């Protein structure tokens, strides 16, 4: 009911129906205008030339009250069929996984003191966030087996791109070797990031779903800035980081970039254990909901000697005037707000709240819990794979070791299986042709600790019946 009031010069100001976004009452507005010494808000816009002023209201739907908003969004939500819902069995992965998220992660990270705070520039007023990010950096460093980690980047693909840009500048070289087994989105983002720079993306062909050592040796040259290998890779296959990175290090200045899955890090050899200089990738599996792809969490860790070249924010430990331990943002001279055009990256806003989710998630799951989750992913995925390959017409597309995801050659179109799944509340996997990693008979199947033996058996039943 935008009530109306006539400014003293007669022009009308329609007042806001947006109760949540303006607290000033009509009466106060007049008092305040008075105090400023103007008759209407329009005069405060005096420096805007008239032709810049919008003559009419915006062409947008009328304001909705909170109750109406709830109903509109309820209707929109009802038009979704969320694969992660308890009503469905979700076998979708390819970079976003349906893991169990403890309720405590949601409730602790929903605290207004965290949700509504800005970047902790004022350390004394932000010890809560700063300590949490310090804990996060430690957890990610340990998870990746590296020395230092930053306080987050946007998401997996851009984190990898940042790693490559960093490698180019640190190594002062131009060639970027990228395994074909890297998630296609990541590859595409990398292409766009490199396109206008003096750098060249050199794709490494896969053999049997993995990159082999020889391919790296052949591609390596005196101008190689870095080698980028994802493992488990987009097919779910576990790459031999140690061998590949060792090969790359034959060129002394070449940096090795691992793209890990953080849950797999609790079970498999970690980037740092395998000679990676940098680990960059997606943190979504660490307690972050699927939410159609974002906001997710860019992870970035590296060896200590690269510390001053890292993109993004870093929290450091320090002391206060009384010697009490405290935390603050540090090495800010790397960053755009100090260094401008010479900054290591343009990133400013990061994914703080998601980093906090990961911190609470890792603290909640803990040493044992995270390993248990990884083990269950492994065992359930392998159980599923063995059952599926026992069905006639179905076999695994690759025979290397895998963690919790694998590609299946199907006797029918993957799409027809996906459609059939809709009738039975199963999201059986991803159409490899659509994702651009295979043909239309190939299905990419991920199995997390959340899946039950029963759901896996239903999946097999679905595959079997879609066969004939």
């Amino acid at each position, binding site marked *: 009911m935008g009530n109306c009031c006539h400014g003293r010069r007669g022009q009308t100001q329609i007042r806001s129906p947006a109760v949540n976004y303006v607290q000033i009452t009509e009466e106060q507005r007049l008092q305040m205008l008075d105090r400023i010494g103007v008759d209407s808000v329009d005069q405060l816009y005096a420096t805007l030339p008239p032709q810049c002023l919008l003559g009419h209201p915006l062409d947008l739907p009328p304001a909705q009250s909170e109750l109406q908003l709830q109903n509109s969004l309820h209707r929109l939500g009802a038009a979704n069929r969320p694969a992660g819902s308890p009503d469905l069995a979700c076998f979708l992965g390819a970079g976003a996984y349906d893991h169990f998220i403890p309720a405590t992660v949601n409730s602790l990270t929903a605290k207004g003191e965290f949700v509504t705070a800005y970047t902790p520039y004022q350390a004394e007023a932000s010890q809560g966030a700063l300590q949490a990010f*310090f804990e996060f950096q430690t957890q990610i460093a340990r998870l990746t087996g590296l020395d230092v980690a930053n306080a987050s980047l946007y998401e997996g693909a851009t984190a990898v791109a940042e790693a490559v840009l960093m490698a180019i500048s640190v190594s002062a070289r131009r060639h970027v070797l990228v395994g074909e087994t890297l998630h296609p989105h990541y590859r595409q983002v990398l292409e766009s990031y490199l396109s206008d720079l003096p750098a060249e993306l050199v794709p490494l062909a896969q053999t049997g779903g993995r990159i082999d050592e020889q391919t790296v040796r052949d591609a390596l040259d005196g101008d190689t800035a870095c080698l980028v290998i994802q493992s488990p890779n987009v097919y779910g296959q576990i790459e031999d980081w140690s061998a590949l990175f060792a090969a790359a290090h034959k060129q002394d200045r070449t940096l090795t970039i691992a793209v890990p899955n953080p849950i797999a890090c609790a079970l498999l050899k970690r980037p740092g254990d395998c000679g990676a200089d940098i680990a960059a990738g997606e943190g979504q599996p660490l307690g972050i*909901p699927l939410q159609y792809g974002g906001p997710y969490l860019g992870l970035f860790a590296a060896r200590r000697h690269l510390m001053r070249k890292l993109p993004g924010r870093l929290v450091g430990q320090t002391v206060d005037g009384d010697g009490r331990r405290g935390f603050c943002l540090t090495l800010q001279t790397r960053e755009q707000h100090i260094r401008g055009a010479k900054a290591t990256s343009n990133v400013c806003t*990061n994914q703080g709240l998601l980093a906090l989710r990961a911190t609470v998630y890792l603290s*909640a799951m*803990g040493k044992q819990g995270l390993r248990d989750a990884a083990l269950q992913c492994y065992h*359930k995925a392998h159980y599923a794979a063995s059952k599926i390959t026992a069905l006639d017409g179905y076999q695994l597309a690759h025979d290397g070791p895998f963690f919790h995801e694998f590609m299946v050659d199907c006797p029918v179109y993957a799409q027809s299986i996906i459609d059939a799944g809709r009738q039975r509340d199963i999201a059986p996997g991803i159409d490899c042709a659509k994702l651009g990693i295979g043909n239309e008979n190939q299905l990419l199947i991920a199995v997390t600790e959340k899946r039950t033996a029963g759901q896996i058996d239903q999946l097999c039943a679905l595959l079997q019946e879609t066969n004939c």
Partner: protein
Amino acid sequence: MDSSNRRQHDDDVPLIFERSAPGAKAVDLPELDVPETPLPDAVISDQPLDLPEVGPLDLVRHYTHLAARNFSVDGNFYPLGSCTMKFNPPINEAVASWPAFIDVHPLQPDEDVQGTLALLYELRNWLAEIAGLDEVCLQPCAGAHGEYTALKMIRAYFTDPKAGNAPQRRVVLAPDTAHGTNLASCTMCGANVVTVASKDGLVDLDDLRRLVNDETAAMMITNPNTSGQFDGQIGDIADILHAAGALLYLDGANMNAIVGVSRPGDFGVDIMHYNTHKTFSTPHGCGGPGAGPIAVRQFLRAYLPVPQVEMRGNRSNPVYYLDYDRPQSIGRVRSFFGQFGVLLRCWAYIAACGPDGLRDVAHTAVLNANYLATLMHDRFELPYFDPGQKRFCAHEYVSVPKTLLAQGVTLIDIAKRLIDFGIHPPTMHWPVHDCLMIEPTETESKATLDRFAQVMLTIAEEIRSDANHLRQAPHKAPVARLDEVAAARVPVLTVAPS
């Protein structure tokens, strides 16, 4: 002074690692219900993974205590200039947590996610209308990422022989008050930044004319600018650039001063990015997430990133889908589609405001800033504010408190003292040295503004009466003033392994 005065009644909070007890855990999983498969030794880690081991109550206490040590909009006035720390309504947090939205996998077939796509399609069009431009891309993860995406598109336009066809245009102009991300984004896109001087806090047109030439790709400008003024020359600036074949880029960080009042597209902007947490109140979460949708004119549409959310069929029964078929696109700028959880809140903001509400948001942002400036300006010099001369600020204003600083305190002392009053310090030393950048935002009440002015005057008094008290501030935070220099000298970025 006795340090205990500074402590809150909870002791200093140990690190979560320091709460570890071997064997403790906060979560359990169902028992494994499938047969085990032997682990291939070759790939299995033999290193212990040293994560915390804490019980569920200790976990809750830990992060509850950390939360208590954090200023936030929910708890504190937060006049952080340019950052626009405004109210984040609980309703938006509530709807953003609905399973119908958060359980959606990014690679589900379009037909399974029609609700999500419909919301994104609507938002895309709303943002185009608000910008007065032709098409919007929702994908960028934050303002800086929007800058990056937009600059890539500008480059694609000029390297397109059938369009801009001027590959030599590699220079991007930016005022000397430009935000750091503007400059850093240029570098990431291989563009060279050239700085345009300011005159009295506005773009120096003569300098601009001098610098524009056929190597100029674009100028990045923020309007209202980063010192809180509308640059009324914006029309001339656009003309100068367009006449020279260059584009005008708007950094939309300050849109909340003009949303519903003035449209970038109407004052000559060719391409811009929004900053959803600043304009549309998506919460900033201790540093993120954000979202930086970009809006462009017709002639730039072809270069937008893939995928784009589109609608086929008619309004009465629309079908929404992701379109990848954009041959001239700059490609992908991130995995999957975008910061959906953030964009949902952005949608909720615009839906709740409606056209009148959005204009009122801008009006009130400007009203609050000018009111607060009026209350402060005799004790705190405000270079660009002088109601007597009918010179007003937009939604924020710069203060350069020379007189006070001349009395031997630093800007930091003033900032840290504010903490004792439960107020978050304003932005400091940006866009100019020794300045405070104050942005009250439109969501604060008059009572809060009055109290802030009162506190600032009290502090001005204290500078005369008890400067030492200021120099030792904060006195009531969980820690005393921290040594940031020491932190950078020998950086400790992780907990030493136990």
